[in-house]
């Protein structure tokens, strides 16, 4: 029996703040930044109202926020934070350290373009900058997914075979500020699902003292980085297990590292992260009505990247449009590089094209994406970076 609450109209901020309230972390350290601030405003209100007894640390910067989170996590406290854009950029030094110290901090990233020019709207340049930091990254399509992924992320992060920070991303404004229909779980259902945090080396366990975060010379740094490879490598299997367990609770049918939408028999596929997958579903429906065999692949998990699963899903298609909402100047987009690498072993694999879209919150419509599907049917289409919605 589903332990969902009634359907409500909620913003991305509200669902994430409620997930945090239900998870009831010991410590939340954060600094306000658009479009993340309301998560903390709602959460601070829950604390002030006595609905959750977390210690909220209001710090002077995101660098300090993440530093406080690392300290708190090392102490053995369940720890969460949230940020976006410049905040994540300022946090970045400590994000790497959190991953290397195996601190299972769950953080909402409200995707926003990195300056400059300064912009407050959605793209993925912020979370993609954290791509190589060692954190697990999952991308939500809508408020419901952002909520569900946050609840799942807590267990994923704290698994002793993983013990890594998890970034749950949701597109700024599109998801954070828009009111959508979503269903929370009952409070006790979330509490039971996440359970008690069982830290492996709590610094406050003075009967079993530990030193944490020490200096590594060349004789051990490499070995410690290699451990992180194994840790993040354990995430996909655990994520799938947790999805199953979550389904029991929520009546959902999550069953993969990516969502395939009308992909099974598709000749042409689109790969895109985050909220634009919702737009792409409309495009797919629109084109399917016209008899065109198109489908969508939306990775939930970007780090670690589920290359094998995605190769199996895409190997039969004619052509793939990979949509990146960030640029890697002088190269291809980060998602394209992953897909390209995943399909590189295929002898007769699909043609793969890279599209950049939606930078700085540029709107991308279902019609725009129909044009993209149309374009990749051309077998002679030149391989080069293409841009959706750019005046050129």
């Amino acid at each position, binding site marked *: 029996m589903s332990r969902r609450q009634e359907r409500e109209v909620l913003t991305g901020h509200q669902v994430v703040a409620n997930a945090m309230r239900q998870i009831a972390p010991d410590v939340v350290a954060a600094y306000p930044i658009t479009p993340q601030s309301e998560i903390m405003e709602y959460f601070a209100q829950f604390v002030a109202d006595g609905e959750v007894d977390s210690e909220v640390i209001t710090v002077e910067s995101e660098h300090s926020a993440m530093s406080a989170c690392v300290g708190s996590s090392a102490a053995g406290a369940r720890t969460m934070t949230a940020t976006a854009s410049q905040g994540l950029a300022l946090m970045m030094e400590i994000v790497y350290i959190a991953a*290397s*110290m*195996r601190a299972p901090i769950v953080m909402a990233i409200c995707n926003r373009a990195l300056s400059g020019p300064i912009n407050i709207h959605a793209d993925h340049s912020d979370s993609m900058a954290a791509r190589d930091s060692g954190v697990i990254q999952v991308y939500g399509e809508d408020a419901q997914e952002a909520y569900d992924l946050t609840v799942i992320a807590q267990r994923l992060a704290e698994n002793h075979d993983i*013990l890594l920070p998890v970034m749950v991303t949701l597109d700024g404004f599109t998801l954070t500020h828009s009111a959508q229909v979503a269903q929370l779980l009952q409070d006790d259902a979330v509490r039971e699902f996440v359970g008690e945090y069982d830290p*492996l*080396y709590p610094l406050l366990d003075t009967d*079993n*003292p*530990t*030193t*944490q*975060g*020490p200096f*590594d010379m060349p*004789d*051990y740094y*490499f*070995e*410690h980085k*290699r*451990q992180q490879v*194994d*840790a993040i490598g354990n995430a996909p299997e655990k994520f799938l297990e947790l999805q199953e367990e979550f389904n029991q609770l929520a009546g959902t049918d999550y069953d993969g590292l990516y969502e395939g939408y009308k992909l099974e028999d598709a000749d042409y596929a689109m790969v895109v992260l985050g909220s634009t997958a919702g737009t792409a579903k409309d495009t797919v429906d629109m084109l399917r009505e016209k008899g065109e065999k198109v489908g969508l692949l939306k990775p939930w998990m970007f780090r670690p990247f589920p290359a094998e699963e995605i190769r199996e899903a895409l190997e039969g298609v004619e052509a793939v449009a990979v949509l990146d909402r960030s640029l890697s100047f002088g190269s291809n987009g980060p998602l394209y590089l992953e897909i390209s690498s995943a399909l590189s072993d295929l002898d007769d694999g699909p043609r793969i094209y890279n599209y950049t879209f939606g930078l700085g919150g540029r709107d991308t419509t279902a019609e725009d994406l129909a044009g993209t599907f149309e374009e990749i049917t051309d077998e002679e289409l030149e391989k080069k970076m293409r841009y959706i919605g750019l005046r050129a």
Partner: protein
Amino acid sequence: MAIDLKKYDEIPIAGVVPGGSTPEMNKTGDWRSERPIWDEETCIQCLQCWQNCPDAAFETEEGEIAGINYDYCKGCGICENICPVDAISMVPEEEGEDE
């Protein structure tokens, strides 16, 4: 000093040192290129070397400098610099080992 280097899956994660780590357990003065030599005859026991040593390499007995603990001295030379009577001189490590 032979060190038994462990494989990546043989060590605790994240560089955690179970049991904790203090200088008492780890000698930290093994990368010195110069070592201070203390001349007891010249020393006026002003204790400025003891006070300014960034580690705790100056050993004292009953309030007086008694010697230098090379297990912790990094060879920074602050003691030589601070000494008002030139009772401390830095010498290359290889030479110093013989003294």
